[in-house]
């Protein structure tokens, strides 16, 4: 450990302007109620599920979390109030920790009925690291951004590893995307079923991007246009996925914002509104 800490800051602690955290706080905490009310409103209905449909996750069992019931509504309302207050910039440490913990529990309630979604880790990490930068500290901000970047890249890279683990080396020559389009296809993508080779080829593209292109997001490019190009490319990929099989990795897309120089947006307005202690 001493060897690590004695080393120069390096990639993990490379400073990032604190203003990026200020911007991320707003976007992330405002996204929480959007996610709860608009994109995944079904979580609320788990308050009404009979107990026998509950399939507790490891974390439920280890922490002895209660079976969802009427309290889920209280949890949801508390989380919305806390995230709106946090978005307003109040008590960044206390409210940030509260939002991170309550949102994790909200997700545990969401995924304890037989299906776990895989688009949350980047956003959960972002929520967890935001309260570690309650005041101006560009190094702490740098670490928060790097952690989120690692989680975002892990979501891509490790999903390719999971394909190899569960689907085998010949996953790329299977018909997984055909299944996806048969089950969730849109008017746009159903035509592709007549041209199976397109879906087949896209499986190669997918694994290549996940394994070889996503790690490039970890690089701090001298030319910031490369970051924009890479991040833009991944947003385009998520847009295409949405148009083809109506799945949108929205929380992940919010976490992806951490890689962009948000601090350059409306800096003047921020400077007027958010005096940062020296």
């Amino acid at each position, binding site marked *: 450990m001493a060897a690590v800490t004695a080393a120069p800051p390096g990639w993990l602690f490379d400073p990032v302007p604190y203003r990026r955290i200020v911007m991320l706080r707003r976007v992330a905490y405002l996204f929480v109620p959007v996610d709860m009310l608009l994109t995944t409103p079904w979580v609320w209905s788990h308050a009404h599920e009979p107990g026998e449909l509950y399939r507790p996750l490891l974390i439920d069992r280890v922490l002895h979390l209660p079976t969802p019931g009427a309290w889920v509504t209280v949890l949801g309302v508390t989380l919305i109030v806390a995230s709106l207050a946090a978005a307003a910039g109040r008590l960044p440490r206390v409210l940030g920790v509260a939002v991170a913990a309550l949102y994790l529990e909200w997700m545990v309630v969401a995924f304890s009925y037989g299906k776990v979604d895989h688009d949350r880790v980047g956003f959960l990490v972002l929520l967890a690291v935001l309260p570690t930068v309650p005041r101006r500290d560009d*190094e702490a901000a740098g670490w928060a951004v790097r952690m989120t970047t690692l989680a975002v890249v892990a*979501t891509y890279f490790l999903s390719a590893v999971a394909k190899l683990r*569960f689907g085998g080396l010949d996953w790329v020559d299977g018909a997984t995307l055909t299944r996806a389009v048969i089950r969730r296809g849109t008017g746009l993508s159903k035509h592709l079923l007549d041209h199976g080779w397109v879906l087949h080829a896209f499986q190669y593209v997918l694994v290549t991007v996940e394994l070889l292109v996503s790690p490039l997001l970890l690089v701090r490019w001298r030319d910031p246009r490369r970051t924009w190009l890479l991040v833009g490319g991944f947003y385009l990929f998520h847009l295409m996925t949405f148009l083809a099989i109506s799945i949108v990795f929205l929380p992940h897309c919010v976490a992806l914002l951490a890689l962009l120089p948000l601090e350059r947006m409306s800096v003047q307005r921020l400077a007027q509104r958010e005096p940062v202690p020296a």
Partner: protein
Amino acid sequence: MLTQTGRRVRTAVTAGVAGLLLAGTFFGQDDAFPFGPFRMYATRDAPNGSVVSTRVEAVDASGRVITVPDSATGMRRAEIEGQVSSFRHQADRLGALSRAHSRLRPNEPAYILVRVVERRYALRDGRPAGTGVEQVVAQWQR
């Protein structure tokens, strides 16, 4: 500037999270959320195998046959699929969907019959051949 301790703690947290994500990816299952494997679309479908699409049907007290939307029971299709093997073995558990519906939509006629229907599409060279064959895999009746 971060203190030595601040940097040390953060380095340890980074290593811990990375270790848990790697362990989940190689050895874990969905159960290990949030450190489970990122297994969206990770299973392989054989190009000459078959694809299953699942839906829930119900008959309500007025005799209507309904394709049950996720919002009517609060259970998503993927959640039904995640529990389908237990519904096969204990069809009585489908009664819980009827109770969930009555709690969520008390003004609608109650479901007196609930069934899980699978439509199986045969694939030939990675393309669907035909319109699929349907089968009721579990049924509960009040």
